[in-house]
C-alpha cells in the first residue's frame, strides 16, 4: 500500500480491501521503524492515530465518508492541533499541547484524514536544512549524510521515505518547494491567501502559506482541495469559490508557453542541476509546450528583501513567547525583565535569535526607512517583474535550488551561504504567487533535483496540470529511496 496513489487508497478503502485502521497501522509501523534514523516525526501517538482511523472506518461503514476518509496524513508541527503536542520545532513550545485546531487541521479532520503524527521542522520554520530543530536534525532518506531541506523537512522526508502517503507543510521562503526538491517528492505552495493561516504558527505573516506534499501532482491536488478554502478567522484569507484543483490535470500541454527566467540559469547554478532541469524542459517541448526566455531582473534582490521583511515580522510574531501564559518559562530568573530574558534565551535556538535580532534592528527608530521600507519597495518591484514575465508566458520554470541537498553541518556555521541557496524560491513568496516542486532526476551525487514551476495568481490548477502531464511522461516521482 505504501506506494499507492490517493486514488488507489481511496478505492481500496471504499471496496473494504483495507480498513483505515489497517492502513494507519502499516504507515505507523514504518514510521516507528525508521523514525529513529530519519527523525521525520517529532510526535507519534499510536493511540490517537488509531482512534481517528477507527472513526474513519465508522464513517466508511455508515455512509458519511468522503473520498479521502481513512487516508493517513502527517502534519507539520506548525499547525495547532487540539490535544496534540504542537512544538513548532522549538524548545519554547516543547510542552505546548494546543487547546484548539488550525483551519487546515479542521478541514483535514472533516474530510476524514487520519493524523499519523507531527513532523519535524526548523524551529519556527526558520531554516533551509532542518538542522535548526530543537528536536534534532532530520536526515535525507536518499543519503543520510545530506540535509532534507527546510523548513518542512520532516514532512518531505515522511513522504519520500513512505512513512506517510501525504503531508502538510508551510512555505515562507521555499519551505515546501526546497525540501520537496531535496527529497524527490512533489509539493505546492498556493497563492497567498488560498490556505487559511488560522492556527498555523506565524513566522512571517505576509509570506507564510500552507500547502501539501505528496508523491505526485495528482495527490497534491487532492490534498490541496482539502486544505484550501476561505476562513473568516484569517483576515488575509481570500473569499473565493471553492475549486477542484484536480480538474485540469489531464489537459494537454500543447501551446502552453513556459518561460525560462535567464537569471535562474546564471552563475551559481550547479551543472548537474542545470542538466536535470534542461532535460525536464526538453520533456515539456516533447509534450507540446512552447519555451520562451523571460527575465526576472531583480532576482538577486529577493534575498536582502526577504531577509529584512521576514525577520521584521518574525521579531514581532515571536514576542508572544514570553513565558507568561504557556510554553517554556525559565526556572530561575530575577524580576520581570529577567524572566523574559532567561526564558527566551533558553527557549529559542540560535537561528531564531539571529532573526529576532535582525528584525528588531530593521524596525528600530532611524533604521525603518532604510531597511524595512526599502525592502517593501523591492518586494513590489519583484512582484511587478513577475507580472511582466507573465505577459510572455503562462508558467515559469527553473530550478528550485542551485544545488542538490548539501551535507549535514556543511553550512551550519555560515548562515549567509544558507540564505543564498534560497535565491530561486524567495521571489515567489514576496510576490504571493503559487509555485511548486516536481521531481526531475538526480544530481551527480545521486541526490534528487527538483524542477520549480511558478504560476500567476490562482493558477494552481494549471501548475498541477503541467506537473501531472510531466509525471505521466517521466518516472522520477515514482523513485523511492532504499532505506
Amino acid at each position: 500500500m505504501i506506494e499507492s496513489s490517493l486514488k488507489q487508497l481511496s478505492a481500496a478503502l471504499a471496496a473494504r480491501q483495507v480498513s483505515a485502521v489497517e492502513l494507519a497501522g502499516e504507515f505507523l509501523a514504518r514510521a516507528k521503524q525508521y523514525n529513529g534514523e530519519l527523525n521525520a516525526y517529532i510526535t507519534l501517538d499510536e493511540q490517537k492515530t488509531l482512534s481517528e482511523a477507527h472513526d474513519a472506518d465508522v464513517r466508511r461503514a455508515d455512509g458519511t465518508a468522503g473520498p479521502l476518509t481513512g487516508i493517513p496524513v502527517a502534519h507539520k508541527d506548525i499547525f495547532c492541533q487540539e490535544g496534540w503536542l504542537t512544538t513548532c520545532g522549538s524548545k519554547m513550545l516543547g510542552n505546548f499541547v494546543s487547546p484548539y485546531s488550525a483551519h487546515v487541521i479542521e478541514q483535514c479532520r472533516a474530510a476524514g484524514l487520519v493524523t499519523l503524527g507531527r513532523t519535524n521542522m526548523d524551529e519556527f520554520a526558520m531554516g533551509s536544512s532542518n538542522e535548526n530543530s530543537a528536536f534534532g536534525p532530520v536526515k535525507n532518506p536518499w543519503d543520510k549524510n545530506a540535509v532534507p531541506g527546510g523548513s518542512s523537512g520532516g514532512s518531505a522526508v515522511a513522504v519520500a521515505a513512505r512513512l506517510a502517503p501525504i503531508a502538510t507543510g508551510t512555505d515562507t521562503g521555499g519551505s515546501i518547494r526546497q525540501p520537496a526538491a531535496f527529497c524527490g517528492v512533489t509539493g505546492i505552495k498556493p497563492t497567498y491567501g488560498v490556505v487559511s493561516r488560522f492556527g498555523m504558527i506565524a513566522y512571517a505573516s505576509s509570506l507564510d502559506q500552507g500547502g501539501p506534499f505528496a508523491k505526485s501532482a495528482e495527490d497534491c491536488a487532492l490534498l490541496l482541495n482539502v486544505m484550501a478554502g476561505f476562513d473568516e478567522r484569517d483576515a488575509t484569507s481570500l473569499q473565493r469559490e471553492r475549486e477542484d484543483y484536480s480538474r485540469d490535470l489531464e489537459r494537454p500541454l500543447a501551446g502552453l508557453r513556459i518561460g525560462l527566467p535567464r537569471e535562474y540559469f546564471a552563475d551559481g547554478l550547479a551543472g548537474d542541476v542545470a542538466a536535470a532541469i534542461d532535460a525536464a524542459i526538453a520533456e515539456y517541448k516533447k509534450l507540446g509546450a512552447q519555451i520562451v526566455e523571460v527575465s526576472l531582473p531583480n532576482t538577486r534582490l529577493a534575498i536582502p528583501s526577504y531577509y529584512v521583511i521576514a525577520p521584521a515580522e518574525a521579531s514581532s510574531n515571536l514576542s508572544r513567547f514570553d513565558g507568561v501564559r504557556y510554553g517554556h518559562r525559565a526556572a530561575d530568573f530575577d524580576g520581570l525583565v529577567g524572566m523574559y530574558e532567561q526564558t527566551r534565551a533558553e527557549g529559542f535556538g540560535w537561528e531564531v535569535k539571529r532573526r529576532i535580532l535582525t528584525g528588531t534592528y530593521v524596525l528600530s527608530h532611524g533604521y525603518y526607512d532604510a531597511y524595512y521600507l526599502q525592502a517593501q519597495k523591492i518586494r513590489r518591484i519583484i512582484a511587478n517583474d513577475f507580472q511582466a514575465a507573465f505577459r510572455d508566458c503562462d508558467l515559469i520554470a527553473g530550478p528550485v535550488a542551485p544545488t542538490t541537498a548539501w551535507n549535514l553541518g556543511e553550512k551550519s556555521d555560515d548562515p549567509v551561504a544558507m540564505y543564498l541557496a534560497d535565491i530561486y524560491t524567495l521571489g515567489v513568496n514576496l510576490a504571493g504567487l503559487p509555485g511548486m516542486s516536481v521531481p526531475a532526476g538526480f544530481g551527480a551525487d545521486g541526490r534528487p533535483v527538483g524542477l520549480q514551476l511558478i504560476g500567476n495568481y490562482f493558477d494552481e490548477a494549471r501548475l498541477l496540470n503541467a506537473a501531472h502531464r510531466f509525471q505521466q511522461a517521466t518516472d522520477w516521482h515514482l523513485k523511492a529511496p532504499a532505506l
Partner: protein
Amino acid sequence: MKWEVVIGLEVHTQLTTSSKIFSPASTAFGAEPNTQTAVVDIALPGALPVMNRAAVDKAIQFGLAIGARVNRKSVFARKNYFYPDLPKGYQISQFELPIVEGGQIAINVDGVEKVINLTRAHLEEDAGKSLHGDYHGATGIDLNRAGTPLLEIVSEPEMRSAAEAVAYAKALYSLVTWIGICDGNMQEGSFRCDVNVSVRPEGQAEFGTRREIKNLNSFRFIEQAIRAEVQWQIETIEDGGKIEQATVLFDPDTGETRMMRSKEDAHDYRYFPDPDLPPLVIDEDWIERVRNALPELPHDMQQRFERQYGIPAYDAVTLTASKALAGYYEATVAAGADAKLASNWIMGDISATLNREEQDITACPVSAAALAALIGRIADKTINNKTAKDVLKKMWESGDSTDAIIERDGLKQESDSGAIEAIVLEVIAANPKSVEEYRAGKEKALNSLVGQVMKASRGKADPAVALELLKQKLA
C-alpha cells in the same frame, strides 16, 4: 514673569461593542478573570485578529459628529513592547494612517466659547490588567479586558488652563456618551485621559518641553493634576531648573505628580503595518449608513429647542446637557406641559433635587408624564406655584400622582372670592399695623397681608384673588 500654560489631551474611550475589536470574546465588565478570552486574546500560537466592523462604525460616528475627515483607507500597525498584560507582545493600533483626522469640539468656560481642534482619532485594542492581589508573591494577569476596542482621541495643544482642559474633557465625554459610542463609566475605565502639559513665558511662540500625565479617570483629577503639574513646572523653571520630557503619574493622595519614566527610558515601539490585517477600507455607502443612523447632535438639538419650543438659548443649552435630560424635557412637553414652565421646573426643582441626591435624570422618580400633570394643575390654577413645590416633593417621596396628593391633603387652591373674602376681613382686623402702613403709602405692607391670607388659608388661597380683595377692602 507671566506664564502661559499649554495643554493637549489624549483620551482613550472604550467603545460599546458587545465583542472585542479583533476577537469574538465578550467585552462585558466584571466577569471572573480570564473567562472572556478567545484564542486571540490569550495570544495562543497561530491565533489571528479579525476586525470587528461594529468598532469601525463607532469610530466613523465620532468622526462625523465632530466634522472630521473619515479616512477612506486607514492602516493598523503593531506597537511592540513587552508587558505581562500585553499577551501578543504588541498592541494593535493605528499609527501613520488613522481612521479619523481633524474635527472640532466647542467648549464654554465662564460663558466664553472656544473651539478646540482635534488632531486625530484612531482605533486600537486595550491591554489586560495586572492584579497585584494575593497571589503568593506573584502577579496575576486578567486578560478579560485585552482586546476591548478603544478610540484614542488626540487634541491639538490648544487649551490654556486646567479649566479649559476640564471643559474639553467634559464636552468630549458628553459627545461620546450622547452618540452612544462609549458608556461613560469612568470608574470602570471607559474614559481615560492622558494630559500633555507645558508652560512658556507669555508671548513666546515656541512650546515649552512637555510632560505627559498618564491615565486620569475623573474630571476632578484632571483639574488637580494639571494645577499641580503647572505649579511644579513653573517653580522648577523659576528656580533655574529645566523641564525634561517625561511621563508622570498623578497621586490623588499627595496631590502631586511624580515621574514614571524619562525620555531616555522611552520605548522604541518599532511600529510597522500589521501584516495580519489588510488596510481598513471604508466606502461611501458605509459612511452614509452610519450618517443616517447618527442621532441628532447636541448643537442641532439646541437650535431646534429654541425654534420649536420658544425657550431661551440658556434653557436650550442646559436641557441638552445630556440626551436623557433632553428626552425628559421633550416627553414632558409632549405630555401637555407648557414648554417654558416645563423648562423652569426641570432646570429648577427637578435638577436641584437630583443634584442633592447625586443622581441623574435617568434616576428621577417623577416621570415626565407626572411632571406634566403637575404643571397642568398650576396652569389651570388648581394649585399655586408654592403648593406645587410641596406636591412635587411628595410625588418624589411617595410616587403618588399630583391629583391624588392634592385630593388627599386638600390642597386645591381656593379661588372663590366669597371664601377668601372672610379670611381677608379677619386678616385686616388682626393686623392693624400693616393696614396702617399700607394706607400710609407703604406698598410692601400689602405683601405681608397677602402672606397672612395665604397662611390663614393654609396656602390654598389663590394669591392673585387675595391681593385683589385686599386692595378693594383697603381702598
